[in-house]
């Protein structure tokens, strides 16, 4: 199994507070890796390290290495290049205060794409992929922030796909989305698996079970266990804590 991301001995501190206490694991190419764990366990922090937006947080210190396709991300000179490889979807939808079209065209434009017909095509494809096209195709010029919460979340997914990322990170994307839309997005993710590597941070254990190939369980900054879903959700994963967590016995 080809490795897309290798994380080794990753430690993150916010001032005195240690958010990740030395975790190591790999993300395979074209898999959906679930990351589960109770609140405050360091899941979001993990994603922020991967696209290096952790650098905007004053006082955050990162030790250990993360490599993508074998390249250490810390040594990548152009951080924007790195971020364009990674699509990021946040828990609460952040429609930029631009039109729907401009929201999706934002990243390609930032990367230098100007050709109108290519942009049109890209915007349409991303909106179709995120299951939003039918609802917005007649009003691409209206403000993205005026969509409903669920629609905005699909807009952010379209946006995250717009720069054709190799890695797609979703951070509890379904918090503000209704169950039906969640299922539609889950279908989209399953389809995307053939093209991109997906890290799915989720509070919903069942979502990880449905969707992921493997799942990692993080607790208070420690990686408790990572394994295929067959093992993680079986009656005897390696750690008793994993069993308790996925069966809702604590947390």
């Amino acid at each position, binding site marked *: 199994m080809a490795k897309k991301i290798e994380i080794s001995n990753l430690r993150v501190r916010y001032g005195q507070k240690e958010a990740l206490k030395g975790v190591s694991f790999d993300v395979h190419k074209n898999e959906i890796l679930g990351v589960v764990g109770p609140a405050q366990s360091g899941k979001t922090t993990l994603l922020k390290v991967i*696209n290096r*937006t952790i650098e*905007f947080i*004053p006082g955050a210190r990162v030790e250990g290495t993360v490599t993508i396709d074998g390249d250490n991300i810390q040594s990548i000179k152009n951080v*924007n*290049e*790195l*971020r*364009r490889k*990674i699509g*990021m979807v*946040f828990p*609460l939808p*952040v429609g*930029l*205060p*631009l039109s729907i079209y401009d929201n999706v065209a*934002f*990243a390609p*434009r*930032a*990367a230098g794409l100007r050709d109108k017909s290519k942009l049109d095509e890209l915007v349409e494809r991303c909106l179709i992929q995120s299951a939003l096209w039918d609802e917005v195709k007649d009003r691409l010029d209206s*403000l993205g922030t005026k969509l409903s919460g669920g629609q905005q979340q699909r807009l*952010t997914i379209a*946006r*995250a796909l*717009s*720069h054709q990322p190799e890695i797609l990170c979703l951070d509890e994307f379904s918090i503000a989305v209704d169950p039906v839309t969640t299922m539609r997005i889950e279908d989209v993710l399953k389809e995307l698996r053939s093209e991109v590597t997906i890290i799915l941070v989720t509070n919903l254990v069942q979502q990880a079970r449905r969707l992921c190939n493997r799942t990692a369980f993080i607790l208070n900054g420690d990686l408790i266990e990572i394994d295929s879903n067959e093992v993680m959700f079986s009656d005897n994963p390696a750690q008793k804590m994993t069993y308790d967590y996925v069966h809702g016995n604590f947390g």
Partner: protein
Amino acid sequence: MINRSRLESVTERIIEGIIRFCGFSAILFVFGIFFFVFREGSGFLFSGLDIGQFLTSPEWFPTSVSNKRYGVLALLAGTASVTALSMAIAVPFGLGAAIFVSEFCGPKLKETFKIVIELLAAIPSVVWGFIGLTVMNGVIIDLFDAPIGLTVLNGGIILALMSVPIIVSIGEDALKAVPDSYREAAEALGATRWQVIYRVLLPAGKNGLLAAVLLGIGRAVGETMAVLMATGHSVQFPSNILDSVRTLTATIAAELGEAPVGSDHYQVLFIIGILLFTITFIVNLASDLVVKGIRNK
């Protein structure tokens, strides 16, 4: 228990009354001022003053013995030229500084900057006028080999220095009000810092930034003392920025004390006041419409 809730409802009502009073009194004051200015000038405005000539003639000779002429065109041009020049300087500088302070500054530098900016804003306008009269005057004479340094350029620079702090502090507030999640989202999409600023922050903060610019213009149009001292005070239609001019406000300030109360001259000065009122009203209205237009888009 019952007593307590009655007490509460009484205090509630009193507070509401006070707030209501404050709101109405603000409106009352504005109308009161307008009414007063209007009353002082209205006699001459409706009988005697040729309004066409008032607005289109550059000849301002209110104290001539044989032939009094009240034309404010030159004064209007003075106000317009000084304001335009000052905005041409202050808007780019002010907005640039606002962006710098809000987006590029470390927290320590930011504090220092804010203190300096607030200090600048607190300098009384006479002091600015004094700087124009002494320092800038000499600089302009030396630099441009001009006969006199009290010019549109001088007044424009002084006014720009006075409006920049307003534009910076309000502009910075506007940018600070843009949620961080926008910045994060844009950066996660691989946008460079500059792209984040002009693609996301400026559109998101445009109402506030526009307000900042308009308040700057308001300050420039309404400023009296500094321009009185820095622009040379000669009534003429400026042909370039090294000409001396006189503004509407400076005229009122300089002549009101000498005009006999109730005379035509006295009343004309109040009519100029009405004109200034109208200008600010139009600027405010235009900005309101622009902001609404942007919002509805």
